[in-house]
């Protein structure tokens, strides 16, 4: 008997080990197979980490090196970017520093590596975060079933997180979202662990409190990494009554603690943010862009092209800090015509350099996409000579972009100030746009959901390349079946007292993370829904991957006929592996390398 049990245990662990080995091999494959810079915002995240690692970096040289590398790896071929001005991202001082501090530490530790070597180093860090998520998902999903039922559900959960095509791609790219996903999964795991501990007999002090300590640490780190880290804080607070409330008295006590924990910092940041963010100059959009040209005598002709300007006074042009004009509206998501503007002599410095600024005054950070290119300074006389036709402009050698100094000045200033500015900013923006949110046309909501759904499952090359439409029909079927399954599970559990071997506390914690992520999505992207569809990125859903990867197979398990549940789960495991192979051989390799 003992031999059979030990063989059973060995086999049980070896099943997982084999799947995990495949996930490790796949992770390594994706890390080297996805061309450099192809991850969403990968150039920006790399640049932020690099500049923090090397504070005296010559920004112009870094931009030149990055541009060369981007061109080598045919970045523009796979993306919507068409001009070099848009390709190299500007440093964003409003980003929280947690992730970039880790990146900078890695870059400094391996300072001998080339730029591409450092980029792959950053990717390996993301891959490590991802493998941590896989292990945690396995542990979390094993806590759902209290009996011997549902052995294949954890395997299916691991297969989902391990082989979902888009997450396989995204999880190895250099992006702060990967760290947030890990931290949220760590918090979820700790809470699940605490809730299942409550059913056991007396445990030692260390065993009792280590999950609390790790969860608190993960919450704090999460708050330093990204705004979405706030979801972890709320999850932690709301979970307290769920895991601690065993009777009415303890439930009231735990709820009070949770409410206080939740309310105090939120109001602190809110009040501080509303009162001080404008003083910190953080409510202003950082995407202004400066150009410098040498002193000139007489009127000067400026030519430029603008991208996706939606409003009359969205982008203003300033010369040496004085507003001189605004950029005309362009078609949505398109470059407008070449525009010409005469800069009057009285505003142009004759002997000292001049600073030309294009400033998007409408923009809270990253809400509206826009851009300028072909910015050139020419001689007015040539325009007159050409009788209204625009000749090729003379480009002064001194005309260059200037974005240095932002990181050094603001990046590490005050995390509390950043948080308060961000909370204040989000709420202020939310209030302003609230009325718009109630008037969002139905087709926009449909489109938003569809774009999100498609890009959640598979969308490469900055959302250009997708699988064929038939696959998404199939993914839709899986999602709907899972949704019905979860509804059935919850309904029958509470109505008919079935599924009693399922730990509903764990399920409710998973649903809580899922629900909080939806609320975060609405707060973060709801206001911009009317103006920009670019925010409908499925990758935003990956912060809840720890919950989704368990809930989707669990829903499928619950909706299957009782006798066929394990076969369905086994099939789901094989299907996810097959899907991953299709994504590699039919899509990733041909798209990037053939």
């Amino acid at each position, binding site marked *: 008997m003992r031999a*059979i049990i030990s063989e059973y245990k060995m086999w049980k662990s070896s099943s997982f080990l084999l799947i995990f080995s*495949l996930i490790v091999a796949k992770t390594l494959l994706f890390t*080297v197979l996805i061309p450099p810079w192809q991850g969403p915002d990968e150039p920006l995240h790399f640049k932020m980490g690099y500049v923090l690692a090397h504070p005296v970096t010559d920004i112009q040289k870094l931009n030149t090196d990055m541009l060369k590398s981007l061109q080598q790896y045919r970045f523009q071929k796979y993306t919507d970017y068409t001009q070099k001005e848009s390709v190299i991202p500007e440093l964003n001082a409003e980003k929280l520093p947690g992730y970039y501090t880790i990146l900078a530490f890695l870059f400094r530790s391996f300072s001998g590596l080339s730029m*591409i070597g450092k980029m792959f180093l950053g990717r390996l860090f993301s891959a490590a975060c991802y493998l941590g998520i896989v292990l945690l998902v396995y542990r979390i999903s094993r806590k759902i079933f209290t009996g011997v039922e549902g052995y294949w559900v954890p395997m299916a959960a691991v297969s989902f997180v391990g082989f979902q095509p888009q997450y396989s791609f995204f999880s190895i790219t250099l992006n702060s979202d990967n760290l947030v996903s890990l931290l949220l999964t760590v918090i979820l795991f700790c809470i699940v662990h605490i809730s299942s501990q409550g059913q056991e007999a007396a445990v030692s002090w260390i065993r009792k409190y280590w999950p609390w300590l790790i969860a608190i640490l993960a919450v704090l780190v999460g708050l330093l990494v990204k705004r979405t880290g706030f979801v972890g804080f709320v999850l932690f607070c709301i979970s307290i009554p769920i895991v601690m409330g065993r009777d009415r008295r303890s439930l009231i006590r735990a709820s009070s603690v949770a409410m206080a924990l939740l309310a105090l910092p939120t109001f602190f940041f809110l009040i501080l943010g509303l009162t001080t963010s404008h003083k910190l100059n953080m409510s202003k959009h950082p995407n202004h862009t400066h150009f410098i040209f040498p002193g000139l005598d007489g009127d000067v002709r400026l030519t430029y092209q603008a991208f996706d300007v939606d409003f009359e006074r969205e982008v203003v042009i300033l010369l040496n800090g004085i507003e001189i004009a605004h950029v005309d509206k362009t078609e949505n998501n398109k470059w407008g015509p070449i525009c010409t503007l005469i800069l009057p002599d009285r505003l142009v410095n004759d002997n000292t350099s001049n600073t030309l600024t294009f400033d998007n005054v409408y923009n809270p950070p990253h809400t509206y996409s826009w851009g300028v290119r072909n910015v050139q300074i020419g001689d007015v006389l040539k325009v007159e000579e050409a009788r209204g036709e625009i000749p090729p402009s003379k480009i002064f050698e001194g005309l260059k972009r200037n974005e240095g100094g932002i990181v050094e000045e603001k990046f590490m200033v005050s995390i509390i100030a950043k948080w308060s500015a961000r909370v204040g900013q989000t709420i202020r923006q939310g209030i302003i746009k609230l009325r718009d949110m109630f008037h969002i046309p139905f087709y926009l909501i449909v489109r938003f959901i569809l774009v999100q759904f498609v890009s959640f499952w598979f969308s490469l090359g900055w959302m250009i390349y997708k699988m064929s*439409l038939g696959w998404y029909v199939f993914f839709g079927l899986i999602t709907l079946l899972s949704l019905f399954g979860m509804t059935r599970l919850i309904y029958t559990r509470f109505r008919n007292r079935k599924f009693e071997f399922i730990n509903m506390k764990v399920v409710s914690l998973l649903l809580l993370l899922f629900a909080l992520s939806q609320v975060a999505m609405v707060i973060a992207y709801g206001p911009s829904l009317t103006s920009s569809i670019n925010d409908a990125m499925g990758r935003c859903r990956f912060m809840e991957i720890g919950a989704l990867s368990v809930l989707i197979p669990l829903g499928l398990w619950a909706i299957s006929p009782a006798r066929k549940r394990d076969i369905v789960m086994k099939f789901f495991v094989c299907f996810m592996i097959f899907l991953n192979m299709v994504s590699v051989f039919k899509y990733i390799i041909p798209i990037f390398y053939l």
Partner: protein
Amino acid sequence: MIHFLKQNKWSTLLAMIFLLGSIYYGVKIVDFVIDHFAMHQSILNKGATKITKSHFRQPEQSIFSKDSFSLFLENVTKYKGGILAWKPFYVILLGLYLGLACLVIIMVISTDDSGSPEIET
């Protein structure tokens, strides 16, 4: 059905391959139907919700030919240094990935529904 599948692992393996193949070709049929019949009449073809074929651009090349594979190895190692510039590295990785994938599928099929191995009696 379950009894049959449990008794014969090869049948299970073939059934699984058949099912996965059916999905693959089923998707192609759905693509064809959407492309030729549904795309023009769907509500998704109107206004801002318009969905066109260009949204689902498909790669034309296939890796399953000798020339394509050589081209892939050529391109994937370009501009890279160290082990990343070594072509056999990618062949080994792809082989490992494929081999382990097949092994996992076989393991899944040969393990019984409770996760324990089937013991011959």
